């Protein structure tokens, strides 16, 4: 049985044609735009933007549907159309039961009101009478774990507490369909885990259908039964989480690296004493590679050029995963370098250290001249790559939540003593 059927939904926005960007227009043009006939730009220069174009899909009851896609792809628009916040330009959506949305943290919350009042207000927004909300107040507060803050104005809440309250209210409104847009990214890990678990339980037990928008691919592939990928307002792919997520990540990786040279990134890659020429990822046999396999050593090669004599250099890099600094490593000592020379620093990241996920590397080269003047060259996001694992291993351990690194650790299990049971 379907709980949500989306048929050919399109959404068009008419936006005024933008002015020439600031600075490029001449003084005369600026003057003219100041005294242009009001409304004319609105009426004549409207520009069509299709936020969604002919999106169709069906969701079975009890499904946790992941919605993924880049920024501005139309994921949020889709959720807003389903929650009736905005009307579609064409198409039709049919569904069963109450739709509760968690579109933005704090939407539908009044900062000056207490947690208790906000529960009632949110209930009212969802069409739930005050009496019913009062009955559920305890379970809402319990799940949000804020028994001591019931009568505290929510403006004193941390964003994590906000989220806990919002989520707890949402699932206690007895929704048939829950729309969650990215907001689970706010809470602490423990609560996130609890939310995801709750979502899964409700999906299984009561047939709750969840549309879960997230950029956290790991969470998506863990809790979703199905994933749709929205790209440029269109349904690009739909299917098993693993397939879609993998394809999405590959595409995202290609986009990030395609045509982007470190030279063009605007970071301080060139300075008074030298410049960073390029940064590459190499395999053990010296080939340039895009995504390394987990079981092989991988090298980061930093090439830089010096301008001046009497200079010392030291290279370093930061490894990021999901915005977290995983590690920072630098050459142990400063090295003397000659003028007008290209140097190449090579650093090995050992096999079986990284997790099967996306990483970003920032590179820095510190140049010190005459042991006094220090100058740093930096290339942010010099490399973005995904580590892939062996198929066999994945099926052996099953789907599991990965950390930012996944080193192969040595385990042992020994028999120590017998226990005599009474």
């Amino acid at each position: 049985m379907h709980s949500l059927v989306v048929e050919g939904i399109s959404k068009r926005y008419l936006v005024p044609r933008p002015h020439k960007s600031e600075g490029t227009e001449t003084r005369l043009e600026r003057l003219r735009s100041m005294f242009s006939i009001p409304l004319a730009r609105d009426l004549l220069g409207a520009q069509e933007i299709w936020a969604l174009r002919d999106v169709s899909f069906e969701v079975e009851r009890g499904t946790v549907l992941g919605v993924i896609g880049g920024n501005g792809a139309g994921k949020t628009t889709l959720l807003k159309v389903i929650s009736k916040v905005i009307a579609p330009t064409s198409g039709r959506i049919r569904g069963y039961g109450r739709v509760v949305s968690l579109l933005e943290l704090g939407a539908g919350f009044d900062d000056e009101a207490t947690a208790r009042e906000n529960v009632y207000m949110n209930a009212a927004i969802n069409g739930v009478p005050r009496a019913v909300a009062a009955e559920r107040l305890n379970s809402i507060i319990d799940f949000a774990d804020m028994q001591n803050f019931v009568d505290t104005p929510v403006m004193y809440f941390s964003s994590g507490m906000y989220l806990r309250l919002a989520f707890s209210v949402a699932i206690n409104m007895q929704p048939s369909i829950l729309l969650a847009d990215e907001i689970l990214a706010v809470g602490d890990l423990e609560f996130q885990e609890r939310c995801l678990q709750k979502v899964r339980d409700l999906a299984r037990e009561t047939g709750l259908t969840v549309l879960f928008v997230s950029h956290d691919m790991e969470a998506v592939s863990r809790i979703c039964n199905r994933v749709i990928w929205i790209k440029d307002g269109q349904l690009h792919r739909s299917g098993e989480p693993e397939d879609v997520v993998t394809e999405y990540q590959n595409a995202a990786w290609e986009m990030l690296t395609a045509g982007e040279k470190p030279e063009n990134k605007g970071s301080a890659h060139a300075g008074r004493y030298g410049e960073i020429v390029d940064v590459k990822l190499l395999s053990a046999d010296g080939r340039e590679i895009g995504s390394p396999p987990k079981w092989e050593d991988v090298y980061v090669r930093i090439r830089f050029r010096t301008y001046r004599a009497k200079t010392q250099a030291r290279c370093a890099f930061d490894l990021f995963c999901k915005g977290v600094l995983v590690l920072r490593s630098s050459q142990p000592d400063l090295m003397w370098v000659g003028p007008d020379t290209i140097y190449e620093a090579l650093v090995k990241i050992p096999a079986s250290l990284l997790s099967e996920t996306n990483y970003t590397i920032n590179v820095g080269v510190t140049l010190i001249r005459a042991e006094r003047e220090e100058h740093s060259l930096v290339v942010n996001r010099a490399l973005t790559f995904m580590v892939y694992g062996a198929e066999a291993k994945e099926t052996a351990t099953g789907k599991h939540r990965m950390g930012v690194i996944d080193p192969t650790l040595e385990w042992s299990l020994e028999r120590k003593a017998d226990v005599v049971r009474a």
Partner: protein
Amino acid sequence: MSSAPDSTPALNVSGDLWMIEPQQHGVLDRVRELWRYRYLWWYFAAEALKAMYRRTKLGWIWLVIRVTAPVGVSALFFGGVLGVSSNGPPYFLFFSCGMTTWILFERSLLVVTRSLERNRKLVTKVYFPRLILPLSAVAPGLLYLTILLVVICFTVIYYRRLEGVWYITLRPQLLLAFLAILLTLIFTVSVGLWTSVMQARYPDVRQGIRYFMPFWMYVTPIIYPLTIIPEQWRWLIGLNPMASIVEMFKWGTLGYGQLHPTSMTISFVMIGLTMVSGIWFFNSQESTSIDKL
């Protein structure tokens, strides 16, 4: 985890089937929905009231000042200094009775107009029937009206003491005064249905209304009695529904006033037209306007 839809227990909520389509729902559906969301009315009404004196030190006292000060000063100016005649009752009483429905209209209309815009954050993030916003935005106006009615009561008692005359007595005509208030509410919301949606698109609307309102007040017989208008042109005043409403209120309370059948009919038709067209306009334009908020 594969979903096995047939083995899952039934939904524990009323499994209403709903549908979202580009074309808007009918008016009847809207009314039903309004009732389902009735708990929200109070919330938005309370919000609108709180917004009136938020962050002021005098708090609710401001409400009283904002009603009594303009009414008192204007009455003193027109009645005392300029010597406008009321053709009967004391000028202050005449003026404040004229101001009741007008204050309800004027103060509410500005709040109603801004109701969608003010709640932008909510409107663009969560769904609820938007119609609740203009409807509950009349709350501040109603409060002003109540304050003014209290002031009128005290004035009547004062004149009883002073002159020994009850200028307003409990009689069946008083019901007309309530009808006048009801009509004002309907008219205010009807006009507001237009202006609130327009305001969402063009913030100029609020400015326009603010400067237009004094002129509207001058063509409404509040400062002056209707009798100063020549007899043969008096029916024209019916084109301004507020004029008929104000006259109706004064006739109901003070017993002075002109209930001109032709102009009354014209006014009722005008109010009806504004209401029907307002509902139609709001219903059809509300969602596209919200895109622009």
